[in-house]
């Protein structure tokens, strides 16, 4: 495992053949030249200069923000004046872990995220398979554009569009009422439908990329050996595409877990973890409790990622 970073600089073409190194004119020692000589002999210095700016940025906006969040969870708020008291306490963590409200909402949020993920994978698999293996190159390009198209519209516009679709006198009611059905109205089903719609492109794209890498020859080999459609899918396609599918679920699962706007717009009176965080920051002005609640989805996602890491799916992101 060597990289170009420490490999010796290759010898210039013309000099190699004539064998005498004296023919090379010594380059003028400009400051840039000297710096580059210095850097080439000090690989660690070079690395430090290269990485310090992005690492500083990553550290400041990402790690420090997360750390600040963690620390805030151990503070409390003066209930009347609303000022933060910086005395250490684990009250918030205890409240979040033991309060029945937080348990219920956490379970509801995980349930919604899981259902959204299952629906999205079920929808994305056939679409992605068609795009990767069946469609002509022209149709494939059109499909990729079609899948990406909804991403050009604002998240809010799409959520409000679903609000009017699912309303009592909306288009869904009009469509299904001849069959004796009715719109689910605003609530958890509406939230799941809307979130599934919103995150579908994020699931289709990794699965499509993964399936494209499955060699056609394997499918043909399976067919030659008498494999019918289902055995081929089960024994050839799915095992090869599994990491890509898991990569797709990471998107839909984590995005659903943190969402609070969709459930606010079409979720009726239901709340998810994001809403609890939001109301604690806004209405309740209790930043420490909000920080403690925010640790729940972080913990869940870390657990999920740890599980997923073993499958190698993270290489497919």
């Amino acid at each position, binding site marked *: 495992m060597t990289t170009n970073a420490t490999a010796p600089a290759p010898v210039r073409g013309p000099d190699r053949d004539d064998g005498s190194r004296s023919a090379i004119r010594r380059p003028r020692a400009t400051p840039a030249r000297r710096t580059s000589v210095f850097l080439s002999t000090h690989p660690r210095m070079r690395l430090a200069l290269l990485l310090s700016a992005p690492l500083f940025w990553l*550290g400041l906006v990402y790690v420090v923000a997360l*750390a600040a969040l963690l620390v805030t969870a151990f503070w409390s708020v003066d209930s009347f004046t*609303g000022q933060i008291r910086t005395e250490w306490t684990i009250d918030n963590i205890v409240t979040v872990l033991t309060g029945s409200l937080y348990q219920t909402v956490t379970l509801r949020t995980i349930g919604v995220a899981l259902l959204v993920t299952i629906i999205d994978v079920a929808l994305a698999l056939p679409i992605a398979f068609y795009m990767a293996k069946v469609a002509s190159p022209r149709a494939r390009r059109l499909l990729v554009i079609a899948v990406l198209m909804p991403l050009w519209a604002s998240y809010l516009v799409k959520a409000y569009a679903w609000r009017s679709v699912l309303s009592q006198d909306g288009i869904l009611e009009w469509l299904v009422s001849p069959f004796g059905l009715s719109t689910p109205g605003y609530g958890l089903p509406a939230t799941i439908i809307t979130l599934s719609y919103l995150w579908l492109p994020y699931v289709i794209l990794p699965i499509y990329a993964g399936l494209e890498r499955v060699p056609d020859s394997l499918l043909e080999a399976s067919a030659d050996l008498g494999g019918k459609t289902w055995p081929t899918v089960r024994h050839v396609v799915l095992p090869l595409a599994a990491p890509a599918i898991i990569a797709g679920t990471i998107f839909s699962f984590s995005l659903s877990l943190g969402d609070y706007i969709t459930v606010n717009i079409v979720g009726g009176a239901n709340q998810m973890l994001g809403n609890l965080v939001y*109301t604690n920051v806004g209405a309740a002005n209790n930043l420490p409790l909000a920080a403690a609640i925010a640790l729940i989805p972080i913990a869940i996602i870390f657990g999920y990622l740890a599980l997923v890491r073993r499958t190698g799916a993270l290489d497919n992101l």
Partner: protein
Amino acid sequence: MMRTTRTARRGATVGVAIGSIALLTLTACGTTSGETAATGDAATELGETEGQVSILAWPGYVEDGSNDPAVDWVTPFEEETGCEVTSKTYGTSDEAVNLMKTGDYDVVAASGDATLRLIAGGEVQPVNTDLIPNYEGIYDFLKEKEWNSVDGQSYGVPHGYGANLLMYNTEVFPEAPTSWDVVFDRASENSGKVTAYDSPIYIADAAVYLMHHQPELGIENPYALDEEQFQAAVDLLKEQRQHIGEYWSDYLKEIQAFETGDSVVGTTWQVIQNVLAGSGAPTEVVLPEEGATGWSDTWMIASDAANVNCAYEWLNYIASPEANAQATEYFGEAPSNQEACEFRSEGSCEAFHAGDEEYASQIWYWTTPIAECVDGRTDVECVDYAQWTAAWQEIKG
């Protein structure tokens, strides 16, 4: 192999570096403390104006024509007094309390569920109403209330007020309901189509209802609830929760829900009914026999205001009949100045029941619930706002 260990060590160095940055930043931020400033005395006389004033207010309270060229009562003030106005708007009372802590604002327009917190937190100063000639013209029933005065000392000038009314769909209710029971005890009749205001302060609406329907609880003031009374209100709301279609805090969301029929009954504001009536939706509003909660806003001055004289000028100006009429009509509420109605458009004062003392007396204006009961009881401790917010989240479940 050697490369890997070196990389690992380098990784550790980077980690330590990041950690120390984090620690530094945290210590820098972690110096805020919860001390309460003592409030000073009110000004006794006014000096030269400072040339500028910075105002924090609800949207629609400080309009300088930038949103709508026809809506502008700031420019005349600037020309009259030479005080240049900069303003910022906020969305919730809690946001207002937070922003006032920055000390960047001279003047704030606060609702009753923020005023007491601002006073107790030492963010606002007492106001000498003798220095405000237009204070004279304010309705008496708005002066010296528990949300704008403490121990007889005024902390600001009333601006406008309104009630949280009961809205109903006239197709579902051919006859106007007279009681809040349609959203509480009889909510099951329209299960899934009942709506309510999405804020902890809505617990007071349940308390107003209980005042009349469970007198044995002895509720005197919906913002002064002891443990038992509070529990009764929370239980009532938990039962109501099963029939709620959705809660609203964005008034456009409620307008849409009543237009489509997703909500047919629930709390509302007059301005929402005005919009719905304009679009021909089958809705009406009523002030039920139990009374209702409402808001009454107050202009206050920051305790460390840099521009006190300009702040007093603004308080005086916005209390004048013309400015008060413009601002309250634009927002959709009743004005606080007795003569403001002469400057409002035809019928707009009647729509908001301006000056109707009888109507106003049925409104329980938003007040911050605090441990020291605001109804004057001293033998019990009341449930404070922090517990109200915790309970509200639990009610929503």
